């Protein structure tokens, strides 16, 4: 049994000369929480984009997921195969309520019927702690935290193998971040592999089992989180990145 669930092999994404992601390789072990850090503009979100194909795949390199090459698949197929991601910016379907959002995610991502989708909606909303009284409200009127909860819940509808979160803690209060922390641990405990991009280092350090640091599109350091953050190069990159 191969326990590398996701493999990124020499992946690059170039924008007209700008090497946003440049020859990145790493593997993700089934069941782990892998943290991804790096200064602003280091290519973290772009890395998520090219893995999930939303909105683009890699310029070169390979992405393997559960033994299959997925880097030329249409993005919706990658999602259906079990890679669920969230977005750094607020994302919602403004006209749809939480229930409607989860219904379509269950239908298209999970091939669930209405009844099964409803049951699963109850589960995932309970898991993320979304208030029942808010389920019938159009998403445009939800709070930032509620939108984030819903975005994670919608990703979980299809019981994905991997959940990829892009800075889920940004804009949240301290208690909300603590809830998020507990939620991610619970999701991981249920067997979901978690990839977590985060600027809030405390969250990364408290829950990730392994940490990758990107700098200028390349992997700068990789390994045990506590050790990685003491790495000279990492400290320089972070401080240098802030001063720019």
């Amino acid at each position, binding site marked *: 049994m191969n326990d590398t669930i996701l493999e990124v092999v020499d992946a690059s994404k170039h924008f007209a000369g700008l090497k946003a992601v440049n020859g990145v390789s790493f593997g993700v072990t089934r069941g782990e929480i892998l943290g991804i850090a790096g200064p602003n503009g280091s290519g973290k979100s772009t890395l998520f984009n090219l893995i999930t194909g939303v909105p683009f795949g890699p310029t070169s390199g390979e992405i393997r997921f559960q033994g299959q090459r997925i880097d030329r698949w249409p993005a919706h197929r990658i999602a259906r195969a079990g890679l669920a991601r969230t*977005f750094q910016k607020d994302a919602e379907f403004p*006209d749809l309520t939480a229930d*409607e959002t989860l219904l379509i995610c269950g239908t298209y991502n999970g091939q669930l019927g209405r009844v099964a989708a409803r049951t699963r909606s109850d589960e995932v909303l309970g898991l993320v702690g979304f208030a029942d009284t808010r389920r019938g409200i159009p998403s445009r009127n939800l709070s930032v935290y509620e939108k984030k909860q819903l975005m994670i819940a919608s990703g979980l*509808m299809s019981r994905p193998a991997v959940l990829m979160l892009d800075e889920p803690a940004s804009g949240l209060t301290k208690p909300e971040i603590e809830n998020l922390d507990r939620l991610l641990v619970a999701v991981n405990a249920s067997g979901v592999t978690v990839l977590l991009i985060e600027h809030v280092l405390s969250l990364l350090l408290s829950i990730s089992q392994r940490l990758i640091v990107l700098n200028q599109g390349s992997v700068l350091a990789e390994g045990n989180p506590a050790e990685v953050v003491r790495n000279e190069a990492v400290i320089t990159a972070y401080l240098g990145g802030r001063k720019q």
Partner: protein
Amino acid sequence: MTRNNLLLLALFVVLAFVPQIFTDGYVRHLFIIAFIYAIIASNWNLSLGHCGIFNFGHMTFFGIGVYTAAILTKTAGVNPWLAIPACAVTAAISAVIMAAPVARLKGIYVVLVTFAVNQLMVQLVLSQADLTGGAKGLVRLPFLTIGDYSFIRDYKLGYYYLALILLALSTAFLILVAGSPFGKSLKAVRDAEDYATARGISVARTRISVLVLSAIFTGIAGGFYTVYLRVASPEVFGFGTMSLVLSMVLIGGINSVLGPVIAALALTFASEAMAGIGGFEDARYIVIAVAMILVLRLAPGGLIQILERLAPTGQKPATPTRSPA
């Protein structure tokens, strides 16, 4: 059942009694035309409003219906009762062809391509004069009959009810589509393409499907229109009809099924009333355009939104700015 659906039901009940009140052929004719516009507008709204596709080729589906029915009945001698449903098929096929390039394009390019398809159809109709009658069109199509009964009798009573039934079927179809997970996914694709894709929704497939679905009753309406008027002419692809129907969609409210239906009824009669005022024949289009701009400025959700403000219920409306029917 939502309040909007109840409103619709009430509307259809009233419309069913209209022929008892208006016994002359002329008023009934206006209603028949209004019903046809209502079908075109509300189906156009499915792609334009619900899915956000700037489809300016919707009249193509109507025109395809017109010429399918005209050619089948006049040239091939097919019974109109068979020719009208056949229009659903040909319109749907034309939608697949148009959707292929549109599925992956964005914004202004969609406008250009769909508009070009529409112009292409005009050229096709004009150039294939042997089949289509060219600029003169096809005239004196066979009457619609049941046994010995011709629908032209009793001051168009038969046509009135057939048009009303088609509008009812089309509306039921649209409500069903809009309420389904597919219908919800249209709004997801319209408002957050990347998020929708990341949740397993194929944007291209959604766009193709919605164009095909919006073509079905539009094609049937075209078939019925030509069988009713007994002529087919290239004007059906024209800019005039298109802008009138577009104003029905926009004034009615792009997020609902009910809005465009009501706007089609209102605008058909308003436009006809203005045409009756001497020297106003052309000015009426300006009036409609101004009305459209006013509605878009004051109530971007359209008439349906104004209606909802006037008749508040205990329940809070589903959306403050726009409301699905």
